């Protein structure tokens, strides 16, 4: 299949178009169509994974078509070990989030149209290999997300949507400037990311540092890195469950992906120069996120802040600049998508029953909702990195990587490891243990809810027991990255 990636990117959009043709009263058909398209997207991604040559570090399935030749913009898409895992993650979480939309009852048609656009944007971001194309997909994600939060969100949805929008937009503009700058700085002028990979490292050191910072700022907002993280708790809390899943599972990865795709290979000098600062930011993220999460009273906000904390591992891995750290970083991105996606699904399950997210309203669910307790426990354990579950591998590799480069930072981050444990155990204690707080007996998770979490739990266990199933895809690409930086 020559145009596999184009199919993957635009297939969800096609679904969106199709949905726009369905009369709005046929809600169930709309839902079915959306799910069907996402299943097929996942299927195509599955085919991609099997066809992917994991022994090669090169970009595969490359497609290049001139788009606006006058200014050198091409439609270039390709996949390598760095993006493959994230594409799979996107397709998987996309399907699960499309399934988990029982709580969406308002304007279902518009919801799914926007959702499908969002999917195209995310997949495109991970697959684009032309800076302008990358930027366009990057922004494509922003707009549907703004509406998804602003229309289908909770109480303070508009505030959250605006906050998210402006934060990210501010970052994106800086990135656009950087993209234009890099276009004019490299000779021959090009937007082709693969060509820039070989051209940009020859830039003058000062340019490298400035461009690095510009790109980093934009990615830092998305990751999010302290102190640009405050959009995240609001956006995550106000977004409806499936959107939170996408937001935490995929959107945050876009920033980290950008870091790996652009900042690391393009600006080796700058990376070297800023590595320590990056590591410090990572450690701060880790500790700050865990601490801030610890005192929240809103369940969803706790999980949201814990994402901030986990993204600290990703930063640490990047700052390590060695294959261990980068492998850990990328793996942690994948794992975090799976785990936090599951966590948000679980919060959603509870919210559907209790209509509140206050921690004080829960308690003792371990006895009344044993299945829920099972899933939440596994996800929480994976979140704080219990060995044998996926979270551990990524965290361990990141910490190991940073240890090889900056031992003291690793020691500092290890404090974060303890805090994360405290955080998730507290969640377990408050939600699952103790006496039931509510007089109402909430029903346990149904089949439809469990079916969403099962794949996530299986992946968590699988990756935890045998991380090679993910690592084998990314290893060659990471090795190449290390050689370049």
């Amino acid at each position, binding site marked *: 299949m020559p145009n596999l990636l184009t199919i993957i990117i635009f297939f969800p959009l096609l679904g969106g178009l199709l949905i726009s043709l369905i009369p709005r009263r046929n809600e169930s058909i709309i839902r079915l169509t959306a799910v069907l398209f996402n299943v097929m997207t996942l299927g195509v991604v599955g085919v991609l994974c099997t066809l992917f040559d994991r022994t090669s570090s090169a970009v595969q399935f490359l497609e290049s078509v001139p788009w606006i030749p006058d200014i050198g913009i091409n439609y270039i898409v390709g996949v390598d070990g760095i993006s493959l895992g994230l594409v799979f993650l996107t397709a998987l979480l996309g399907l699960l989030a499309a399934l988990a939309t029982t709580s969406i009852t308002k304007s279902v048609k518009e919801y799914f149209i926007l959702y499908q656009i969002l999917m195209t944007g995310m997949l495109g971001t991970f697959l684009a290999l032309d800076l302008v194309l990358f930027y366009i997909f990057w922004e494509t994600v922003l707009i549907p997300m703004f509406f998804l939060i602003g229309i289908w969100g909770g109480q303070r949805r508009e505030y959250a949507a605006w906050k998210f929008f402006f934060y990210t937009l501010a970052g994106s503009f800086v990135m656009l400037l950087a993209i234009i700058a890099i276009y004019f700085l490299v000779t021959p002028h090009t937007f082709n990311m693969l060509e820039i990979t070989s051209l940009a490292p020859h830039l003058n050191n000062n340019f490298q540092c400035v461009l690095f910072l510009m790109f980093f700022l934009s990615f830092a907002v998305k990751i999010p890195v302290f102190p640009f993280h405050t959009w995240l*708790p609001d956006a995550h809390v106000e977004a409806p469950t499936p959107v939170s899943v996408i937001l935490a599972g995929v959107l945050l990865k876009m920033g980290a992906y950008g870091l790996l795709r652009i900042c690391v290979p393009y600006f080796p000098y700058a990376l070297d120069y800023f590595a320590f600062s990056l590591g410090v930011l990572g450690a701060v993220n880790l500790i700050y996120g865990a*601490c*801030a999460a610890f005192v929240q009273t809103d369940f969803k906000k706790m999980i949201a802040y814990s994402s901030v904390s986990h993204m600290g591992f990703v930063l640490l891995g990047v700052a390590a600049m060695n294959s261990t750290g980068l492998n850990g970083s990328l793996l942690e991105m994948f794992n975090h998508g799976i785990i936090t996606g599951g966590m948000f699904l679980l919060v959603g399950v509870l919210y559907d029953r209790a209509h509140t997210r206050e921690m004080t309203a829960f308690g*003792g669910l371990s006895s009344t909702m044993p299945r829920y307790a099972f899933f939440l426990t596994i996800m929480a354990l994976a979140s704080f990195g219990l060995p044998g579950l996926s979270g551990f591998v990524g965290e361990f590799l990141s910490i190991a990587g940073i*240890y090889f480069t900056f031992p003291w930072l*690793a*020691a500092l981050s*290890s404090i974060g490891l303890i805090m994360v444990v*405290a955080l998730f155990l507290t969640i377990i204690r408050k939600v699952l*243990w103790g006496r039931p707080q509510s007089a109402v007996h909430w029903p346990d998770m149904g089949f439809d809810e469990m079916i969403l979490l099962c794949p996530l739990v299986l992946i968590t266990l699988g990756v935890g027991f045998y991380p090679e199933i993910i690592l084998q895809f990314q290893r060659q690409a990471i090795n190449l990255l290390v050689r370049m930086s």
Partner: protein
Amino acid sequence: MVKYVYLIPIFPFLAFWLNILLGKQLGRLSAWIAIGASLLSTILTFGIFFGMVTANVHNYTCSLGSWISINGQTLSLGILVDNLTLMMLSVVTVVGTLIQIYSVGYMSTDIRFTRYFAYISLFMASMLALVLVDDLLMLYIFWEGVGLCSCLLIAFWHEKPAAAAAGVKAFITTRIGDTGLLIGILILLASGHSLRFTDLGAVQGSEVLMTVAALLIFLGAMGKSAQFPLHVWLPDAMEGPTAISALIHAATMVAAGVYLVARSYVFFIDHPLALHTIAVIGAISAVMAASIACTANDIKRILAYSTISQLGLMMLALGVGGYVAGTFHLMTHAFFKALLFLGAGSVIHAVHTQDIHQMGGLLHRMKVTGITFIIGALALAGVGPLSGFWSKDEIFIALWQSGHPVLFAVAVLTSFLTAFYMARVIFVAFLGISRRQQQIHESPLVMTIPLIILAFFAVFLGFLGAPWCINGAFQHFISPAMHEVIHMNWGMVILSSILSLTAITLAYLIFVKGFRLPSSGEQYFVCFYKLIENKYYIDEIHEKIFIKPFHQLCSLFKKFDCMYIDGVIHAVATVTAVMASYIRRWQTGRIENYLFYQICGIFILLMVISGKLCRIF
């Protein structure tokens, strides 16, 4: 036979999944699945045990496949079976199986019966795997696994807030140690060393760095083995079911720290400072916990402190080079401490209280429990010829030979205190008059049979290491390189006998005869007593130094988020909004204003171009 060794943890692991996934359908069958699994493991263990002993094989390693590669090293899941492993395997499987059988009776009325057995199976699997693996990282993985099971089982009765809090506390406290262990592993990894236990002896590198690594690894052991100052979780852990206290918090998991030190002993022995630290920490823990145990009133807490103290003794022994003594005590302690806990559980099951002052005269009501408990207590007190006597003797000898008089004195003091508080428990709770009116029944057979079996071990296991009996079989077994003949050290035997007998007599005088100190001395004593009764205020110090600042830090961060970061964001937004509120007044909505602006614009345009136009003309 030995090549099937990897099956040992697999059986309980399968039992775990079976129980956790099919819990409701299985009902009471789940207990027998768990027990069956661990029985299979036991049988396999002993099969391998005798296979290896008869074939005179001391070492077996195999690799089950690579797991991950870091820094150019491929870490694989490997198995190392040597005599230490075999000893641990036997202890874990035997004690584990007995305790599971006991649990069938003990937990019979619990609503989460199946989950209990699921967790305990998971624990067995992790613990057995922990013992089997051949490198530090793998050990760390299962190390966390047992920690998790410990946490889940402590908080098993999570409806009690104290239990839930204790579960969390246990995990976090041990996690502090584990993080140290992780960093220690990283240090070894970063300096390019293999993490295999068999290669640890050959570790080279900067002395300071390696000593730090050793100390950090020991930090992990401290957390798990509840050594000062990370011991605070263990007494709280007594909120869990007593059978769990017996299995995890007395016999097996807490011994994992000692096991870790013993396992990487070749590494520690190269770094005297680290070894010395182990000895000192062990000594502090031993005497501190023993003194607290003298004043505690909760039977389980007494045993918990006693565990800390005994683990301290083992660490002490290891720290001064008494490898054999440490491991020997580890083995004997596992059995008699499990016995004591199970006995205590049996008592609690019957009288529904844990305060020893509310018990009394139990021996007459609960014959089997009483007698086995007393056997266990005497073994712990080091009364010959029970098992504790022999292992304690080994420790004394090791300390004596190492030539540290202070440490030796600490050990002597500890064993004196041990005998004293165990005698106290017996005199107050089991002998004397009954303080309860209610009918007290002996526990069912399913609970008493494990007690009897354990009592059997508590009595006879020591002979394995007794010098005159089968020529110190244990010593030669655990340390195959040693060939010298073990001699009886009669001095030590007499010393420890006198010690325990004095302590028991003293306890008899105080708790039975009501003997009191002269009042002048009492005044002086009260202060000291208060200090001990409050466990040296260690919990409070922890609270002050770690927990409170942590909470304050968290609140600070939350505030920082809301006030400063969001404050800046909101300030930017507000400035924009204020500016906009002025600018938007131009938008009056009146057509004539708009036209006016438009014409002004045209006018300005005309002004600008008029000069140019004139020139063109």
